[in-house]
């Protein structure tokens, strides 16, 4: 029985991943801590942002010195983009940088909530898919819009659990479940996870994976929290595959009544 589970792997497009935990690389104290946390998380995919090179300070360390893009999959992200135009520009540059076709699209609509602008997101997904990109899309937890994204060619649906960096955890498990049930592409919870148990809950619902940044980077001990998330995701997935017991309104004794003295 347990051997059966070994065949359970995570696939996005044609990329096979060992871990169902994807981690962000922002907000860490330094690159050393980033690298340690990523290693401890067991993730084989990390999100990265595209920004201007610091021309003046050439000696400043850079991310690729600490996380080798040949050993770990870089997932370029459009974090901070508020228009389709900016997001497309960012991802086209990312593709030029290293030939990355698998990317994460994020078009934000509001500075305070960082809630995704779904109109711009859908528009961008359509264009990127036509240009040959494999797009993993950050989105709201609206099942109809999630389906629309899939119809537009999204490679993965990435609904938020709650606002980016809020740590509020899963706020609408019903909607997330509906999205999981209808989607043919992987569903990955992106944003809002606060602690390891939140990730377990997401995985128990049947999510294919979770993406975590703030909950690890903002922990008192990010490296230990990375390990906690690794275990939480494995536990949640196993629990989902094992199939939980039925919920009952009344008690059912665990010991047989027969032979009771």
């Amino acid at each position, binding site marked *: 029985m347990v051997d059966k589970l070994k065949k359970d792997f995570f696939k996005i497009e044609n990329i096979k991943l060992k871990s169902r935990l994807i981690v962000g690389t*922002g907000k860490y104290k330094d690159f050393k801590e980033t690298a340690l946390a990523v290693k401890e998380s067991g993730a084989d995919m990390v999100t990265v942002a*595209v920004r201007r090179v610091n021309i003046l300070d*050439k000696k400043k360390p850079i991310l690729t010195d600490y996380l080798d893009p040949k050993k770990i999959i870089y997932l370029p992200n459009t974090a901070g983009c508020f228009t389709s135009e900016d997001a497309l520009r960012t991802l086209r540059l990312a593709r*030029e940088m290293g030939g990355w076709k698998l990317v994460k699209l994020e078009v934000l609509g509001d500075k305070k909530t960082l809630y995704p602008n779904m109109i711009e997101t859908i528009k961008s997904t359509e264009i990127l898919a036509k240009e040959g990109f494999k797009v993993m899309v950050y989105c709201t937890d609206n099942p109809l819009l999630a389906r629309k994204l899939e119809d537009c060619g999204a490679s993965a649906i990435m609904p938020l659990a709650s606002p980016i960096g809020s740590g509020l955890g899963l706020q609408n498990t019903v909607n997330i479940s509906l999205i999981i049930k209808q989607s043919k592409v992987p569903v990955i919870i992106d*944003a809002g996870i606060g602690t390891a148990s939140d990730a377990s809950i997401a995985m128990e619902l049947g999510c294919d994976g979770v993406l975590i940044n703030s909950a690890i980077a903002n922990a008192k001990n990010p490296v230990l929290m990375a390990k906690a998330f690794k275990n939480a995701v494995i536990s949640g997935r196993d629990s989902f595959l094992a199939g939980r017991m039925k919920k009952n309104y009344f008690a059912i004794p665990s010991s047989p009544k027969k032979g009771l003295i």
Partner: protein
Amino acid sequence: MAKIQLNGKKITIKSKLSIYDLLKKFKLNNKKIAIECNGNIIPKSNYKKKCLKSNDKLEVVHFIGGG
């Protein structure tokens, strides 16, 4: 001489300097970067061919930590 804008900063360079030469000057030639000139992405294969002229706006980007 040519006055260009590099990542938002105004700099003066030798005229007819190629992108390849500019990257070498800033020790960026071996880095994982992408370049946009006046809004158009310049493929790596064109770095030697593409010469910079006054008022060109150049953006040199790379990957940094992000969520």
